[in-house]
């Protein structure tokens, strides 16, 4: 059943494919991603970056693995961007999401032309997850609500960003719809039939509301599930290796 198939893969975020978005938009995505990457890399010392490269590679590997390993009975793919963001920090998670999107694109998951946009969307999740976790931890001083709220809100933010990106291409989709209708399925309508089919014109309009109505409810389920899984992972790490979460400074 296609709907169920969609639900399974889509719940937490969406990797935009090639060929759907307008050129200006994905070029803009690359430019912004490079600029953000350059700015964030200024915050890390070169020696520190070299020392943390293997960790970055490992966490990028964890995200790729999470995105590719299916939890069979519920057919869900975990995201793990927020927990990676918490462990890596904002600068490194941006580079990690760039790497993840390149490898996933080479693997056929998501597009090559949209690596910049996909990186921005995914890094918004990781960076906001990190910042929100720090904020909630400072306020609540409890790992469970801090991680759950940070993950839930970060996923909501990244899904909203994805909807925002998709909505920026409306005029391009309209163009594609009209061009598509002039293609191999073109039929020469008689004059009197033109009026009859005026009603179809409305159907040829881009319907973003319907898109949002599908994405948000499915996303909501994903945010909940991802929130629970990320919280349990963070609790496990907190129990065995609390140093990785770097919470000592806040508690002392």
């Amino acid at each position, binding site marked *: 059943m296609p709907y169920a*198939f*969609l639900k399974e893969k889509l719940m937490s975020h969406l*990797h*935009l*494919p*090639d*060929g*759907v978005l307008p*050129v200006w938009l994905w070029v803009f995505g690359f430019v912004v991603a490079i600029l953000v990457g350059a700015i964030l890399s200024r915050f890390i010392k070169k020696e520190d*970056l070299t*020392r943390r490269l*293997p*960790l*970055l*590679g*490992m966490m*990028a*590997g*964890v995200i*790729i*693995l*999470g995105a*590719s390993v299916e*939890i069979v*009975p519920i057919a869900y793919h975990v995201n793990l961007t927020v927990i990676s963001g918490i*462990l890596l920090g904002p600068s490194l998670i941006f*580079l*990690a999401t760039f*790497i993840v999107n*390149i*490898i996933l*694109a*080479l*693997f*056929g998951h*998501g*597009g*090559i*032309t949209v690596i910049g946009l996909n990186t921005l969307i995914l890094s918004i999740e990781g960076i906001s997850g990190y910042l929100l976790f720090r904020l909630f931890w400072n306020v609540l001083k409890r790992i469970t609500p801090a991680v759950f709220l940070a993950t839930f809100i970060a996923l909501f933010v990244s899904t909203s960003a994805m909807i925002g990106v*998709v909505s920026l291409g409306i005029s391009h*989709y309209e163009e*594609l*719809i009209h061009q*598509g*209708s002039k*293609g*191999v*399925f073109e039929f020469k309508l008689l004059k009197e039939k033109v009026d009859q089919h005026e009603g179809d014109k409305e*159907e*040829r309009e*881009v*319907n973003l509301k*319907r*898109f949002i109505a599908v994405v948000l409810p499915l996303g909501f389920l994903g945010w909940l599930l991802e929130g629970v*899984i990320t919280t*349990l992972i963070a*609790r*496990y*790490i907190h129990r*065995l290796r609390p140093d990785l979460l770097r919470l000592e400074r806040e508690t002392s």
Partner: protein
Amino acid sequence: MIQLSYLDYLAIEGKSFFHRLSPGPKIIGMAIVLLGIVILRNLPGLILLYAILLTVFFLAHVPMKIFSLTLYPLIFAFLFIFISGFQIDFILLVFLKVLCGSTGVVLLLATTPYPLIFRVMGRFLPPIFVIALFLTYRSIFILLKILEETQHALYLRGGFQWRYPWRSLVNISNAFGHLIIKGIDASENMYESMMLRGFKNKIHYRGE
């Protein structure tokens, strides 16, 4: 994900003409395919491009098992159906663009080992970026091994059972937590090994 190691195996062990071709022309070919996806806005053109890619796919003796990978991005393209108001011509256009892109990259990956692709990328990307790509690639195989061991432990603890959803979620999350901790330990060992071998922010290729 297991298919990643299989793809890697195919790229290294494959004997077809496309496997023997150097990575440069294949990457240029992929760039042309991407250009086609961006420029082409009519169904016949995209059908022709897809037909060419499928022909190359089968000429390169890439197993059918891998073909399913090219269909994966359709899941994301499926959403655009809701934007278009179910216009069949628009849907076909989007699906063909997506299929051409995914078939192109899977074909490239199944005939070219990852390190050779990274080597070409290293000519125009910052070195630190290429190192991160290599380390991620290496990490995936380390993590796959840990995951395999963890799966056994997970199975012994009951795995995922619908009757006990909470316990199942805890089991799965603990498995991922274990994977992350083991991965971080492995990354620390990897860093020490790299330093001992004189790593100086550069990856050296065979023959350099």
